């Protein structure tokens, strides 16, 4: 095998001329992967906007029945985790691997907080019959009414059937986002293991930076999901 062991911190893989070239290539690969992420979520955003155009009243009802305080909390948690991740990259680049390790632990903790909050949100929705899958769709109308703003009280009688579609998109988009968070946690543990093995140095930190980019894109998607789902 050509993956014979060599010191990754000082030597590039066999088909690269230098660590710099290897780093640049790796980073560009991650950026291309980010473009695919944008397009993949983009498809769901197309769905969101098309149905919003068709059933915009139901989007208001649906948005009101979500708990925006929890959404805002999660936004904050993700922003902080993005910050710790960015700072972890900074520390790795300056050679402070121990600090970087601590920061990544905080990032993972934030990711878990996000998922726990999401779990409570989801279970509340399922409890009130608002999960649009299998045969579980049986929304508790009095509950939804109680959640509505005054300005949208009149809408609900119009066409409650299409409310389902809002929740389809809600669960599809936040669900896919949640899966990305899970994958992100997996990647963090991979990074943690490699930091503990002392694999990174100011010259070789592509993996940390790549996972960082991934984590920020997950954050960006949430930046859009939060207002679209919870606020407007």
């Amino acid at each position, binding site marked *: *095998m*050509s*993956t*014979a062991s*060599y010191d990754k911190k000082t*030597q*590039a893989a*066999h*088909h*690269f001329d230098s660590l710099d*070239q290897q780093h*640049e*290539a*790796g980073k*560009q*690969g991650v950026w*291309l*992967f980010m*473009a*695919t*992420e944008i*397009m*993949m*979520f*983009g*498809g*769901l955003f*197309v*769905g969101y906007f*098309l*149905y919003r155009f*068709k*059933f915009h009243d139901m989007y208001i009802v649906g948005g009101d029945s979500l708990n925006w305080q929890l959404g805002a909390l999660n936004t904050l948690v993700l922003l902080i985790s993005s910050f710790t991740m960015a700072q972890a990259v900074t520390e790795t680049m300056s050679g402070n691997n121990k600090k970087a390790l601590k920061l990544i632990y905080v990032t993972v903790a934030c990711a878990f907080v996000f998922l726990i909050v999401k779990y409570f949100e989801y279970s509340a929705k399922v409890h009130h019959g608002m999960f*649009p*899958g*299998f*045969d579980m769709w049986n929304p508790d109308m009095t509950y939804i009414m109680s959640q509505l703003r005054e300005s949208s009280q009149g809408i609900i009688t119009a066409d409650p*059937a*299409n409310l*389902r*579609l809002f929740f*389809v*998109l809600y*669960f*599809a988009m936040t669900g*896919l986002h949640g899966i990305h968070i899970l994958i992100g946690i997996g990647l963090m543990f991979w990074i943690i293991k490699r930091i503990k093995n002392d694999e990174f140095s100011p010259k070789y930190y592509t993996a940390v930076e790549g996972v960082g980019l991934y984590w920020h894109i997950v954050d960006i998607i949430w930046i859009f999901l939060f207002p679209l789902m919870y606020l407007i």
Partner: protein
Amino acid sequence: MSQSDTHSHGGNYINCEKGLWSWLTTIDHKRIALMYFIVIMAFFLFGGLFAVLLRLELLTPEPLFMTGDMYNRAMTLHGSIMVFMVIIPGVPALLGNFALPLMIGAKDVAFPKLNLGSWYCLVIGAAIVVLSLFWGGVDTGWTFYTPYSAKSSDAVTLVVLGAFVMGFSSILTGVNFIVTIHKLRAPGMTMMRLPLFVWSLYATAIIQVIATPVLGITLLLLIFERTFGIGIFDASMGGDPVLFQHFFWFYSHPAVYIMIIPAMGIVSEVISTFSQKTIFGYKAIAYSSLAISAISFLVWGHHMFVSGQSGFLGKIFSILTMLVGVPTAIKMFNWVATMYKGRVKLDTPMLYSINFLSLFTIGGVTGLFLAAFSVDVHLHDTYFVVAHFHYTMLGGALMGFFSGLFYWFPKMSGKMYDETLGRVSAIMTFVGFNLTFIPQFIMGSQGMPRRYHTYDGVFAPYHITSTVGSWIVAAGFILAIYVMVRGMFKGIPCTEKNPWGGTTLEWSIDSPPIHENFTEIPTVTGRPYEYR
């Protein structure tokens, strides 16, 4: 850096390591290309078998040996296999993998492990698709249109999952190629000195990276629709079935350019080499590849002229679709101009490339008929569409693919195939192909609808000619594969580095190449195709 000496004793990339395991875990791009060769040829024969069976069924107006259900399943399998498992990975993943690093003077692609991973994605996805046969097969057609695909047999979920996994294969290959082209070029290999096949792979990779994720999310939603019943494409729950078509064609129209652009790249190489003449309009060909890949994202609605899309948008898509003709025509002009006054050698790769030129021209021009909004209303869902699609995909992409296979054959295997039999196969496929599909243009314009296993007796002469033609095409391709496989094992060793007189970098190294391609990374000083 220091690894090359540990491998130098092995000779070339094929025999430097032995055993099945060394192949399955290899991260050498040339070996991965050979593994692609094996699986893609197997799928090609499998998909081709269904094509022949379909044509055989259509020999008589009455059902011959298939029920309608069987026919639909065979048709879907033929389409899915040929599109997702043969043509999409065919040129970029097989020939691209082999030739790209050699042509730009690199030791490997940028991410060798990812490259192996994308081979496994293809194999796993394909295995899932084949598994669906045991669940009774799929009868939706390769486009999986909702709402039918949401209600049809359980096997749909499996096939869609398979296509989803294969999508990753395509994305990973695309990412790999873009980075390789940007970061691993040999010293002096500027973008404007890249061989045209590399340019076409670059344009293809852009589509693979940008469009394939949309297919991923579409198929994922279809799986959710089927398993959870979420109703996002179900009109009875407020969903919009046309949305599925938007999603699907946003990927699948650019996907046909994933299939054709690299074939165009191969033809550029072959025509220049076998005319022994500098390619006419290098920049025009390079930029037109990029133009096609950009325009390909603007035309998906022409698949939906009659599916309830708005008429206004239909007109816009109709006009935009015509635009694709411009860069394609530029390429055609340049290829013919390259051959003009060249020293044309009619060897097998060149014959296949000439097949490409003539057949793809017909395919492209009939594409303009179908792009015209009003004409399409008459022609949609007839054999005219079938014929057009096969002229571009079989007559275009696959002819280019085989041209490339024969062109790089001596480099890949270090041996020479039987030239006479190779030429015979090229001529057979050309004759058989036209015999199969010209009648389909005629009966399509007369109103013979596609996807039926029975038909009115007046179409019988066309269908019979078409079926007979399909036997000749099949025989031609089987002969071509036989020639290659036999050449690999029993061919005369071809020790010459440059049997065709090519000017690109891969012809400056041993055939077959050593494990790390170049003993010394070359420095490029001029453009490719500098003949005389």
